[in-house]
């Protein structure tokens, strides 16, 4: 039980990173970006490319990676941001200027997602990949907790990033401007805020979160060209559950979905095993997310911390 909970917290922390990026983007850019999952994949594969390209620098004690991974993630963040800004410049900015509706923006993002996935498939092929094939042994921590060293790094890294984004949004001038635009775009503009800069910074922050979340998922699970697309379901559920535009909502939604998926499927799997029934319950994880989103939409249509929209 405790192992399932820990597994859920780690999975939830990765969902949370993506959900914060997606909720910021959905709120400020005013459309659901279906390509966000594929930017997550792009981040993960960019890290793989840099890890393969960089010379072997050894691994940190107990971990499956070393300095080359740290450098690769940093470079991957830059690449992901650059490609996101390029797509914004080529597609989304033009559509905004044409005044197209949120629905068409979302459909355009679907097209972008196909492009990114196709390119990743062409470059890396469809098969599953790993940053490291070394086997990691779980460490026993107090209270009977078992965790792999990589998982501790993921958890601490996600926590640091979540609080860094929170600090940025709460304490910096641009962060306040982003929250003001999220509240009221016209009044923000009339207060002297440049919406174009706010949009640019939204892509940048979302890009950082996508690249890091993608890489963390690659470290914890594996890499595949469809990883981000499959990850979209828990991301959207977390965003909808927490309320579009809510930072704390994305955090709560991400952690709830992560823990619920792991706990519920894990407990059902254990029950099946005890009854000696053959079934792989983990493939039904997305169903848990769907059940959650249906319940939330029925009870709180705007999400737990969501704003009523006109």
């Amino acid at each position: 039980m405790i192992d399932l909970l820990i597994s859920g917290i780690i999975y939830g922390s990765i969902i949370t990173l993506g959900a914060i990026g997606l909720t910021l983007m959905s709120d400020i850019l005013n459309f659901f970006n279906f390509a966000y999952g594929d930017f997550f994949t792009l981040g993960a594969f960019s890290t793989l490319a840099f890890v393969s390209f960089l010379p072997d620098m050894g691994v940190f004690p107990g971990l499956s990676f070393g300095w080359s991974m740290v450098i690769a993630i940093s470079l991957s963040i830059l690449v992901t941001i650059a490609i996101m800004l390029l797509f914004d410049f080529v597609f989304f900015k033009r559509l905004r200027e044409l005044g197209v509706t949120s629905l068409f923006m979302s459909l355009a993002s679907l097209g972008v997602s196909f492009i990114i996935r196709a390119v990743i498939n062409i470059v890396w092929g469809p098969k599953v990949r790993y940053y490291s094939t070394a086997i990691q042994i779980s460490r026993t921590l107090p209270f009977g907790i078992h965790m792999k060293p990589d998982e501790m790094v993921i958890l601490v890294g996600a926590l640091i990033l979540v609080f860094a984004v929170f600090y940025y949004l709460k304490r910096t001038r641009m962060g306040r401007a982003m929250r003001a635009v999220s509240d009221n775009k016209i009044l923000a503009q009339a207060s002297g805020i440049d919406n174009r800069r706010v949009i640019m910074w939204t892509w940048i922050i979302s890009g950082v979160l996508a690249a890091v979340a993608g890489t963390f998922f690659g470290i914890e699970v594996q890499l595949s060209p469809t990883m981000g697309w499959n990850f979209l379901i828990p991301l959207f559920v977390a965003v909808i559950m927490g309320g579009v535009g809510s930072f704390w909502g994305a955090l709560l939604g991400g952690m709830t979905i992560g823990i619920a998926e792991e706990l519920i499927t894990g407990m059902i799997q254990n029950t099946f095993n005890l009854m000696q029934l053959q079934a792989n319950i983990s493939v039904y994880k997305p169903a848990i997310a769907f059940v959650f989103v249906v319940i939330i939409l029925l009870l709180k249509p705007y999400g737990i911390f969501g704003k009523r929209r006109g």
Partner: protein
Amino acid sequence: MSTILTVERITAGYGAQDVLFDVSVCISYGEIVAIIGPNGAGKSTLLKVIAGIVRPRSGSILFKGIAVLGMSAQQLTARGLGWVPQEDNIFPSLTVRENLEVGSYLFRQDPRRRIDEVCDIFPQLRDRMKQSAGSLSGGQRQMLAVARGLMMHPDLLLLDEPTAGLAPNLVQMMLEKVNEIALRMGNSVLLVTQTLDALRLSSRGYLLSAGGIKYEDTTDALLSNREVRDLYFGG
């Protein structure tokens, strides 16, 4: 007195529908001017056109002697124009302090002195700096909205029905504040209103009806005009 704003023959609207037809308005430095008229006359649209929110189909606008038509709301704010809309005039998820800080977004220095200044005018805000703006009462929201509009020290403040929805005692207080702002900070104020008391605050007024200027006169003349009193202020 020299003119701070000259609006010449503005025609504007939304989609294919025109709301304003050939509207001309001017306001001098330090002057308070009222725009009165019934609901749907186009008063708020006129302020939105001046603030750069709605782009007019024709006409011209001179602000401090410079043609500003086509400039964005952001550029106009940088040039000294403040706009306080009637609705959606605060950032509800931000605290009171953050609202004021966003109000001084283009002023890149520490805004504490300016926050102190606006709190001298609206002392009720001083104790609520950490409170979420969305949790303020109607009167407090209006005070915050006007205070936010003052943070950039605008030369011209556009106030859209600052007393709408306020209790009678708060209406009087808000009007006194508007007067205080004009006297103390030297702002010109273009005030959209439907109340007699607010009109009395102004030196001149325009009566806007069905998208056109019907009367333009001194406040005293407008107040003594029976048609104005009967039709728009209930006699």
